[in-house]
């Protein structure tokens, strides 16, 4: 049987690298993989890409086009071209949830809210400013300060009775607040729930006056349980987590790679 051409998307995020392989024609996902990000971004991306290819019985000659996205996209030398994560998340989410009109992506270093039209194209977007207060970095700092793993935050928050009020909108100052809360005997559960609410409030502030449903939540932070509920409360809207939320950027990049391969506008 003739081998089908593959297209690849590589999302070089600040915390993790994600690779998605799709069939160039059907856009069916044929492989995916994830690895921690590190200093040698190019090497790590290349290693992961090769590993995912190998795992799926493919090699470099099967790949028609590669698009890199994410914070470290420029460092991915095997990519044919780069596209920002804003466009890639929009394309990826549209593929998975065609009716989506708002996408909230919270990654390790930044957060964004995208408004999509019916065809899945970005109409407008907003991003967090320099401060990491509305990003996954806030959760990392919290986990470190509380001495727990990142994936333990969600279950902890679920046990909160009275979420703490985190007044600071700056991660550095918030860490000081957390220290103060711990010293005053505030339960860890309430601190985590307070941090999740603070992140959600930041996103709601970015969103402004109107958030058109359906609202889809992507990015690594979407996997932290409790964040979706916090966002729903802050936005006063139903928020659905995208299937495989960490991979939507890479999926979008792979779809854009297939468009590039076919000569269609990206």
């Amino acid at each position, binding site marked *: 049987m003739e081998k089908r051409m593959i297209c690849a998307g590589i999302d070089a995020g600040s915390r993790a690298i994600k690779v998605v392989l799709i069939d160039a024609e059907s856009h069916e996902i044929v492989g995916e993989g994830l690895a921690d990000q590190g200093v040698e971004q190019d090497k790590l991306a290349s290693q992961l890409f090769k590993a995912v290819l190998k795992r799926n019985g493919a090699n470099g000659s099967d790949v028609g086009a590669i698009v890199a996205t994410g*914070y470290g996209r*420029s460092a991915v030398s095997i990519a044919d071209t780069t*596209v*920002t*994560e*804003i*466009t890639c998340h929009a394309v990826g989410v549209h593929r998975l949830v065609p009716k989506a009109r708002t996408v909230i992506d919270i990654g390790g270093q*930044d957060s964004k809210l995208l408004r999509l*039209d019916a*065809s899945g*194209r*970005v*109409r*407008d*977007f*907003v*991003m967090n*400013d*320099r401060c990491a207060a509305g990003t996954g970095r806030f959760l990392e700092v919290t986990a470190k300060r509380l001495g727990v793993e990142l994936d333990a935050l969600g279950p902890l928050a679920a046990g909160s009775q009275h979420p703490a009020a985190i007044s600071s909108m700056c991660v550095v100052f918030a860490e000081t607040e957390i220290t103060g809360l711990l010293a005053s005997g505030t339960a860890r559960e309430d601190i985590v729930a307070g941090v999740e609410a603070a992140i959600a409030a930041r996103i709601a502030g970015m969103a*402004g*006056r109107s958030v058109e449903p359906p609202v889809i939540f992507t990015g690594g932070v979407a996997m932290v349980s409790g964040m979706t509920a916090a966002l729903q409360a802050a936005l006063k809207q139903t928020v659905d987590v995208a299937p495989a939320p960490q991979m939507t950027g890479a999926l979008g990049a792979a779809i854009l790679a297939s468009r590039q391969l076919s000569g269609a*506008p990206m």
Partner: protein
Amino acid sequence: MIDAPERITLEEWDLRYEKLYRAGLPQPAYGGPLSRHVSDGDHRLLKLRYDNSPAALRLWNFLLTEEDRLHRARAAGKKIVGTMKDLGTVPVMAYSFDNMVAFYPDGAWWIPCVMEYSAGLLEIADSLGIDESFCPVRAMLGAFVTEAHFPIPNMLICSVGATCDDFSAIAQRLNGLGHSIFWWEIPHRRCPEQAEATAELPGGLSAPRCQVEFVKSELARVKVALEQLAGAELDEERLSAGIRQANLVRQSLAELRYLAFTAEPCPIPALEMLVAEMLAIHYCSDRGETMVVLEELLDEVKVRVRAGRGVLDADAAKIFWVNPVADLQVMNLLEDCGGRLCGTEYLFTHALDPIPENVPPLEALARAALADPMAGSSIDRAERICSDVCRFGAEAVLISRIPGASHCALEGQVISEVVADTLGIPVLEIEVPPVADSMSPTVRTRLEALAETVRARRRSRQNRWRNG
């Protein structure tokens, strides 16, 4: 020598300069290769990309030799007036005297960028209690302390009231250091009430008659102070002549802006346009030469437009830029990310609009001063931005926040909402410190995403047309 328009590095400019020089390039006294300014400490120049025309070379050399010009003016016995915060009103009065030049000490806010912090001006401001919670214009304080960037003026004039809070605080600190300042007040521009006498202002604005009268009286005080400094009277005829000269500069700039923002492909880079627009405020200490520099740039742009040649891809996303950037390199970055400048609002639109010539000169200047975007509401600013976005055909608006600037904390959201509601085009806010190298990846992502979004919207529009 005919060369295709392009953006080139400083190193490439050096090679090009040699060729042009050998070919007999006519140059003004302040001419020469651009790279010579690096030895003065202007290290940022090494990282910028420039338009490759001789007109752009002249523009840059004119900008980067202002300090020499001011020292020569002093040596020639001319009076030097530092006009602070006021953008484009008092300089018109000062240049109406024969023996006076005005300059803009606030312009020192670019020194930390151009010299990549090496001058230590921000540290001096820190030591004077004006820290990074203030706008980078605090570098001006350091420049007054070191006296290494401009001669201490014979007179300092500063507008207060409905101006930038940061700047008022910084100017007061300067005053406290022993620099005498002549203050004049600009009130917050309000809408005339029903049955209240109204005055039309430049830019389609209006204000109560009483506010114009008040500003006129303030400018009359300024005029007397300038007359005392000059030792000569400034009669209506001379002031009117000064206004006419100012309007010639503004007219030339208006034509340049229109071509630069609307011609396809883009005929001149964003960075050179930023420098050109800044000349309108204070003429870089030589009004006559400003006119020559702008005319030469305009001629170059006209030639390019007629030939259909430009410096960027024809499909570049058309971006309307709000607020000046503290780091000049970000103007390059816009173009590297697939955008082009298609309109600007650098907080001094009133210094670009013609000053009325059909009313007495002080009345005309008072009306122009009251049209200052900072004297009015953010809604007024946003409406002017919407109007100019339509005029130039921009596809998105980029608001560049100035770190520490008090007005930026509030105006961005107002402008974003008015633009989004009125025009429905994307609006993006970024924050640019004086040296944005460490933030370059995040700023780049935002600018690239904005350009991608504009292109996606174009495709959506095309699809809608195709589908009827």
